């Protein structure tokens, strides 16, 4: 899964007063970036680079964890044992992805508890796609196909991110993500090829609801993307929002044909001259509304995370107490 939220944080003012030494360090840092070198955790980096990464990586991590909720909703109601096992494995993967990413964010000097506090207090964002509900079983396949498909488009360039711990986490994630998209498509294909008319209609309904939110996952248009230029300069971001979105549309239209579903956009049309599909305007007011906290499930999602964290407090404390007791015993022996 993926966050577009890296583009929607508040724009921070860059510190302009620098010492001579800092300016020299920054010059060497820029040289490394220009040469395509990686930055490691203990290397010197501009404060703004560090902040940008903490925001982006932690929002990405939060998205993976919150992303477990809409799919977890269907684990107990998966139609077959096979689909249940697949869904369990996928949701477990999302949890794992969240953990790789939290660990990467922590290398920048922010503690796990600080990161979680930011999520639980609503200060940090996560991908707004997870604020939509999963109403039917077809939503699960559609999330795999469209949402994970969009995520993969977004994530593959991040494997070359200049910040090495993030890039390494992304390589691991991308390796696992392909299964997510394929299982989703496979599940929809079974319904479209062997399903009842009602099941086919269910798939079409799910695609209709997830199509536009999936396109929004790539973030605001390049012209309005607040962090894009600096992130590109620093090699945190490699391909622009609009270019990735176009790539996703081009790939998905062909897949929809194989599946036998239509995409809910009357303006979707092959453009011979551009060699791309044209598509209709995106309702960005809906995007900003959901990012701003007013999507269908924002409150429910955050409440579920806070509850899980609070309910787990005694387990965390007990495990620590046990570890301390064992350590004392060992010392005494």
């Amino acid at each position, binding site marked *: 899964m993926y966050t577009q939220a890296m583009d929607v944080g508040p724009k921070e003012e860059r510190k302009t007063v620098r010492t001579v030494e800092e300016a020299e360090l920054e010059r060497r840092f820029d040289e490394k970036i220009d040469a395509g070198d990686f930055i490691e955790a203990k290397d*010197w980096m501009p404060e703004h680079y560090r902040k940008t990464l903490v925001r982006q990586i932690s929002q990405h991590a939060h998205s993976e964890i919150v992303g477990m909720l809409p799919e977890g909703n269907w684990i107990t109601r998966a139609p077959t044992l096979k689909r249940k096992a697949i869904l369990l494995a996928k949701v477990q993967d999302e949890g794992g992805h969240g953990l*790789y990413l939290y660990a990467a964010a922590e290398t920048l000097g922010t*503690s796990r508890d600080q990161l979680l*506090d930011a999520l639980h*207090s609503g200060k940090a964002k996560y991908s707004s796609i997870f604020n939509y509900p999963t109403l039917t079983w077809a939503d699960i396949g559609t999330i795999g196909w469209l949402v994970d498909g969009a995520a993969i488009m977004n994530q593959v360039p991040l494997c070359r991110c200049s910040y090495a711990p993030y890039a*390494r986490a992304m390589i691991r994630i991308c390796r696992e993500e392909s299964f997510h998209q394929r299982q989703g498509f496979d599940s929809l294909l079974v319904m479209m090829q062997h399903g009842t008319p009602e099941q086919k209609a269910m798939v079409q309904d799910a695609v209709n609801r997830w199509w536009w939110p999936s396109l929004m996952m790539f973030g605001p248009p390049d012209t309005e993307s607040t962090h894009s230029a600096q992130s590109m300069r620093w090699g945190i971001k490699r391909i622009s929002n609009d270019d990735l979105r176009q790539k996703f549309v081009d790939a998905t239209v062909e897949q929809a044909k194989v599946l036998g579903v239509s995409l809910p956009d009357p303006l979707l049309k092959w453009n011979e001259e551009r060699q791309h599909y044209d598509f209709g305007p995106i309702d960005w007011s809906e995007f900003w509304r959901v990012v701003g906290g007013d999507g269908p499930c924002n409150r429910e999602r955050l409440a579920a995370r806070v509850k899980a964290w609070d309910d787990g*407090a005694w387990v*965390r404390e007990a495990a620590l107490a046990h*570890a301390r007791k064992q350590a004392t015993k060992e010392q005494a022996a």
Partner: protein
Amino acid sequence: MNTTTTQNEWPLWEVFVRSKAGLDHKHCGSLHAPDAQGAIQLARDVYTRRQEGTSIWVVRSDQIVASDPGDKDMYFDPMEDKVYRHPTFYQLPKSVDHM
């Protein structure tokens, strides 16, 4: 909501995985766990969900001693001009060059 402090945070562990017999353990990431046993268990779930490993090492992150990245040039650059340490430095007659 609980206010959280780092005192309640489980310690951080670095995880090393041997992907198969015959290869060395390789650093693959880190995680929080209350103790060593817990770290091994969590490492299995987080880092080897697809048979990526046959053996796991964990070590407390605060126990790792590392070279200072600021000393990188001073430490490693002296090896740069010692090309004679590499086999390719030696031009041998063709008939014996595969030695």
